[in-house]
């Protein structure tokens, strides 16, 4: 579980992403952000360097 993020740090991320949030919406997002971080942490399981992504580039298809 990642360390909790401070409101100040979260505000910096929100600003960096170009979002302008009302105070209420900011609180909502702040409350939900730990879930995003948990999902991201779960995705960071070790995997082999040959584990390909599911979406495939196919030049002939274009």
């Amino acid at each position: 579980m990642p360390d909790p993020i401070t409101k100040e740090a979260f505000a910096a991320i929100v600003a960096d992403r170009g979002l302008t949030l009302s105070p209420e919406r900011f609180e909502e997002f702040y409350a939900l952000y730990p879930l995003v971080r948990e999902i991201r942490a779960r995705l960071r399981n070790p995997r082999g360097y040959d584990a390909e992504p599911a979406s495939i580039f196919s030049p002939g298809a274009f």
Partner: protein
Amino acid sequence: MTDLCFLTIAEASRQIAARKLSPVELTRAFLERIERYDAGLNAYILVTADKAMADARRAEAEIMAGRSRGPLHGIPIALKDIYNTAGIATTAHSALFKDHVPAEDAVTTRLLAEAGTVLLGKTATWEFAIGGTSFDLPWPPARNPWNPKHDPGGSSSGTGAAVAAGLAMAGMGTDTGGSIRFPAAWCGIAGLKPTYGLVSRRGILPLSFSLDHGGPMCWTSEDCALMMQALAAHDPLDPGSADVPIPDFAAALSPSLKGLRIGVPRHFWETDVDCGAETKAAIEAALEVYRALGAEIVEVTLSPLGTYNDTGTLISRSEAYAIHEQYLTRTPELYGAIARQRISMGALVRAPDYVNALRLRGELIRELAAVMTTVDVIVTPTTPDPAPLLGEVAAFMSKRKSLFSRAFNVTGSPALSTPSGFSSDGLPLSMQIVGRPFQDDLVLKVGHAYEKATAWRDRRPVIAEPFAAAAQ
């Protein structure tokens, strides 16, 4: 002995088939030459001398028994050290993978072995095919055989240096933004980035899944064609592999280009990039050669080169970071500084920018496809200038000094680099020939015709001996 090492695959294979040349004798000549010269070139990370001699003896016995496997039988080759080799270290030129010994060959390693090649060893690379030219790795960087004080280009630097110096008859590189064509250009050899999907990527350490290509680096385009015959094959376990008919690459070669239409996006090197005068003059001279061979030169316009480069950069950094994140967050000290910094850039790319780069990539592919309904191939320089001093490549390259190669990783097109002359300092100049998807045979034909019409392939680097100390 040196003469043997400067044969092309086409020449050597004819002599081997006629039993005038022994694969054992040929392999011994290469191993002796590596022993004599590689200390000053650093082309190899590992020389597999015992395996090479065993491969050569097997090839010789099979050929003598009338069981020829084709034109690569008994041909000594080298593999960039990101091609997995079963039981043989595959280090990516990195402390992180210093003890990495794969259990299985890469598909391409296996196909070349099945074609009867002799493995001389594993060659130097920019760390993980991205971090170079670096001096903080467990092995030194390769040097340019035309002048060891100069850079060989990268990332397939060791293969480029080895083939140019006569330390391998051919070799394999990989290319995510130009890493076959760039060292081919600065080392004065031919290097083909095949169409994405034509050559299996399975078992090659990835840098960027959707931009990585494996391909041959040889003295001539004809030799690249002979290598491609063994390499091009559908691999159902590589999700990017294409199930397409495989042409007879060598049969497609012919010196006549009558009726061929060559597209020239002159804005790439006249306005988009600061291209050196000698490179520009060499391209114009090459186009004259093509006119004389019967081709028609057609001006074409594409998006600015920077648009292709931006798209490629966002994709390659994102995909590279996804692969390396687990190692970078835990043991960043095991990377050299350049690889660590370049890959870490991926941590700064936002998800929507990556996805939008993939949308723009679609537009650029369609743009090129539309232009290529009016022309058969596109010709550009490969690099804006010949090789700078060793270690100056990062400072030398910039937005205004970009390679011309990355655009065609973005589009997945087949793209060949072949020498187009020499600078006043005696360093190779080069051009790039780009084709429609899966028309790799035509690209090789266009390169071959130029090589036959000019004398550049007759000149080999003269390597002083010993020069290692003087080159420091």
